[in-house]
């Protein structure tokens, strides 16, 4: 049996909905329209692609780890082995309706370049990431004095694939800087549920453990 890949383990402990799907993936999938063409960058073992295909979406994936790719292809998913940092430039403009970075952005070397490619290739972008502004992470740094480790982010600083952490606040700044328009944003609390809307951003930034953003190009 092929081993589960490393990146997917980033979220291995994430909350799951009654149907068995990871809540963060359900939130992402809910943002995608039926029949759309989707590129999932960093698709791991293909869980999101499978979820999307079950909803009538034409999904493709890119995955860095060979084990992940082979597992996806063996499941009948259209996935290519590739690197988000180098291979996105090969894709033509407007090739997809949505480009998704599900728990991937923080593992890229050049998040801004990746985000810009994402909105060049796709009409929409969906980004989900762990919020480094969450209070538990702040407490670990403030009182513990060490790099934080949580259920969702179980790695030690020296062996983590996640090299560019950001908070919800930081991500919004990146969106402004790179000309991305925020269409929709969802924060998930520590138990995986969606946080109530109408909360101010500072509240999300403090209590949201993960965030999912639907983006589009600013016209």
């Amino acid at each position: 049996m092929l081993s589960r890949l490393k990146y997917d383990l980033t979220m291995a402990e994430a909350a799951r909905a009654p149907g068995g799907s990871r809540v963060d993936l359900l939130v992402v999938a809910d943002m995608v329209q039926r029949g759309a063409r989707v590129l999932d960058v960093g698709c791991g073992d293909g869980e999101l692609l499978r979820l999307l295909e079950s909803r009538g979406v034409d999904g493709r994936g890119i995955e860095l780890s060979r084990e992940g790719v082979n597992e996806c292809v063996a499941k009948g998913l259209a996935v290519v082995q590739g690197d988000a940092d180098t291979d996105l430039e090969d894709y033509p403009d407007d090739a997809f309706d949505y480009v998704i970075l599900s728990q991937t952005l923080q593992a890229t070397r050049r998040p801004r370049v990746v985000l810009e490619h994402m909105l060049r290739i796709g009409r929409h972008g969906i980004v989900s990431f762990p919020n480094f502004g969450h209070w538990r992470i702040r407490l670990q740094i403030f009182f513990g004095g060490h790099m934080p480790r949580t259920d969702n982010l179980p790695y030690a600083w020296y062996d983590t694939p996640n090299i560019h952490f950001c908070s919800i606040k930081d991500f919004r700044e990146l969106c402004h800087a790179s000309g991305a328009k925020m269409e929709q944003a969802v924060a998930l609390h520590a138990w995986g549920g969606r946080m109530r809307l109408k909360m101010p951003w500072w509240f999300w930034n403090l209590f949201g453990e993960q965030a999912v953003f639907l983006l589009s190009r600013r016209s």
Partner: protein
Amino acid sequence: MADIGATLDLADRTREADAPHSPVVRFGFDKPLRLDAGVDFAPLQIAYQTYGTLNAARSNAVLICHALTGDQHVVNDHPVTGKPGWWETMVGAGKPIDTERYFVICPNVVGGCMGTSGPASTNPATGMPWGLDFPIITVRDMVRAQAMLLDHLGIESVFAVTGGSMGAMQVLQWAASYPRRVFAALPIAGSTRHSAQNIAFHEVGRQAVMADPDWRGGRYFAEGTNPRRGLAVARMGAHITYLSDAALHRKFGRRFQDRDNPTFSFDADFQVESYLRHQGITFVERFDANSYLYLTRAMDYFDLAADYDGVVAEAFRGAPTRFCVISFTSDWLFPTVESRAIVHALNAAGARVSFAEITTDKGHDAFLLDEPELFAIVRGFLDGAAKARGLPGR
């Protein structure tokens, strides 16, 4: 080299070229094969094998394109050597290319020597084998001939077309030439063009054949000779390129063959030498030297981009075909970078493509060997495609 090959009965070999142990289709002068070389070739004979059953909707055909030295005998014993078929690991009941689900067709390529028209076939105008009078053929010519065969069999579109190496070149040519006739394409260890290094290897092989005095300018049938030594040397050289340094070391290392010490001679002291000599000897039993020249030439000429103003992606523009491209980490003949170029082009063309690189130390020939990861990927890809095609599940 004196020990290479028993004297072969030439009549036996031309018999397999003209009246093979396979079904054949013949196309007369009214249906010539238009070749890239500008020749209308006729009459044309195509020998092929089939396995499994064509369904009522004629939608479950899988076309297998064989490699340079392969043939149509995919999963039956070889009529000349008696050895098992060349892809028994992949094809058969319950195998990834499941003959209980799919109707598998494998034709011998044009230019081959196992029953499809080639230089060893008899030229009806002279009653002698064609030899070098046979026109130069290309990969596209091979594919055109296969399309004629499918027309004859009443198969409008194939569920899948697959093959490794030269077979992968044919797969890509199929998808480019007849996109509507190919539902799924699975090129393994292939390339969109033959590299300079590979052309160089082929040229060495051809020169080995032509340097054999028994080659006689290609007229060895007429003169009652056979360039066995030249062809065996060509095969030995080529065979090295199909393996890898690591695989050779694992299999043979520096071990001696049936002896404890070197003989201080040019005997096959090392196991690897003995193995290569064996490869050479067994190859000439079943393969025609001129065929080897023609087929290596066809591979050299293969450059898909050349037909599309230098842009490979244009070959696949708007193709409805779903692709699965596979390469092997230790393949230095058709390295992963070549498969990546295919994927790049397919992505640029917006095609539905999967790509997997399989970790193995077995080199280019890994596609013929027991590679469980390869089987899982082929099976998964075909299952997914079968579902999309509406073929019944397993």
